């Protein structure tokens, strides 16, 4: 049981970075960026390959830089070439499959054997005892979250937020929305790649299909978190994605051990939860309208 909660915490914190990326693209910028799945694998592929070559620390910024490049391509497609934003993400995502294979040396999976990872290096420092992986995951995610909150309060960060809030106003405030969308998507995809990089090194293996459904799970975490923590400023947003991600991983762990839902069905269950949660405002409206119609009917409104 302890082992399960430990794993849930570690994965919860590391995958929270994906949810944080989606908070930035989907909530702050108001763009559904579907580069996520491929970008997660890209981060993991770059990270594991570099760790296999003996550079586990360098692997992290390299993975983030590769993610930022993927975000740049998506942003370029939608801001300069007029590709609809959802399609831009899908196009990049498809292209990334080949890029990821290339990054993995044209193999469909890469594993670390005795090579060092950031986790084994951290263990060497002797911090956190047997919880060293959890401690590092928490430090990494909280630090990145703090930087993100700080960034959203800077002038550039304010411009990115305003771009998602009111694009007319942004142009009238001498901000170039093309630039702010590009900056936002580069940062968000760097975060997704960072998540992949850390998860890859922790699990010491990466499979070319390891990213399937990451975007939907990330959205689920975002929505679960916002339900618990609420919506508001950047601090609340970042807290929400961390809480949501940890809760999701605990639910996942419970399902895994108790088998209330067959584990093969979990992606379907996640998809249904996300679908319903995003549809909630429309469903509420529909229910209110039906109620109103029923009430009018009872009064005999003929």
């Amino acid at each position, binding site marked *: 049981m302890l082992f399960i909660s430990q794993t849930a915490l570690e994965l919860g914190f590391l995958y929270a970075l994906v949810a944080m990326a989606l908070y930035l693209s989907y909530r702050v910028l108001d763009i559904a960026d579907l580069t996520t799945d491929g970008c997660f694998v890209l981060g993991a592929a770059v990270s594991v390959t570099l760790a296999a070559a003996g550079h586990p620390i360098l692997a992290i910024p390299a993975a983030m830089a590769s993610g930022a490049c993927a975000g740049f391509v998506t942003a370029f497609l939608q801001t300069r070439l007029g590709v609809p934003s959802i399609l831009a993400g899908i196009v990049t995502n498809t292209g990334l499959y080949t890029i990821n294979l290339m990054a993995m040396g044209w193999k469909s999976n890469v594993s670390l054997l005795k090579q060092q990872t950031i986790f084994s290096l951290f263990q060497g420092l002797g911090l956190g005892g047997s919880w060293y992986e959890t401690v590092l995951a928490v430090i990494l995610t909280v630090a990145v979250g703090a930087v993100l909150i700080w*960034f959203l*309060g*800077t*002038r*550039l960060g*304010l*411009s990115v*937020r*305003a771009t998602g*809030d*009111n694009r*007319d*106003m*942004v*142009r*009238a*405030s*001498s*901000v*170039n*929305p093309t630039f702010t969308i590009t900056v936002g998507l580069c940062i968000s995809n760097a975060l997704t790649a960072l998540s992949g990089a850390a998860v890859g090194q922790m699990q010491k293996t990466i499979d070319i299909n390891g990213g399937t459904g990451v975007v939907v799970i990330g959205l689920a975490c975002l929505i679960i978190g916002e339900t618990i923590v609420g919506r508001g400023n950047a601090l609340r947003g970042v807290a929400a994605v961390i809480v949501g991600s940890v809760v999701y991983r605990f639910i996942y762990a419970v399902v895994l051990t108790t088998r209330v839902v067959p584990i093969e069905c979990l992606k379907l269950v996640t998809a249904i939860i996300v679908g319903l949660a995003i549809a909630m405002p429309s469903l509420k409206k529909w229910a209110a309208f039906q109620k109103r119609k029923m009430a009018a009917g009872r009064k005999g409104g003929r």
Partner: protein
Amino acid sequence: MLHVEGISKTFNPGTVNQKKALNNLSLHLAPGDFAAIVGSNGAGKSTLLNAVAGSFYVDEGRITLDGEDITFRPEHRRSRGIGRLFQDPMRGTAPHMTIEENLALAYLRTSRGSAPFSRISRKDKEFFAHQLKLLDMGLEDRMRQPVGLLSGGQRQALTLLMATLVPPRLLLLDEHTAALDPGTAEKVIALTREIVAREKITCLMVTHNMRQALELGSRTLMMDAGRIVLDVSGPERAAMTVEDLLLRFRQGAGKELDNDRILLSE
């Protein structure tokens, strides 16, 4: 100051909806000019403002501001020197950001070249609070609230403040009080008059209120079919009544003024 030389713009060329919105229009504004534009429906008043702001590029002609040719300069780069208010009070502010953050964003205008990672300082906040106090709407006590909670009039007053926080070289007002109730509109007009006079801002305003067009500012322009048909200022304007203005329009445009929103009295 602002020189608009023979600009033309045709929308939807080659289709049944083809419309020549601006027709070889020229306009010169001297520094400190405050010109009010009135005109028929579809005369091209808002189109003129959009052309100057850079919402689209004109088909012909040249636009210069303080001697700089801005004809082909993109909108976000022109807006460093041009402040702008729309009719819809929702368009000028970001609803999910706080009053303070909205003001900080507008303050970006000055920060050209300064660090993108700079933050709002305590001094900036005091400056914002001082400026908000001048609006006399109690907004200085609500700086950390999202702008979405404000009324239309408060949002429009805030937009006016944001556009003039760093005095722009040119201020464009596109019927900025038309969507407000009469009392609030009066207040925003008073603020406009006060701020424009205090900062000596050159200003181009579209209005549907004939009386306002004569009283506010220093020049009255009338437009019809993408052209300026009347331009009065000085003593001639001071002696003018709304009836005179309508008569002059008829002489200039060769037809009656046709605007279903125009306010003749009030």
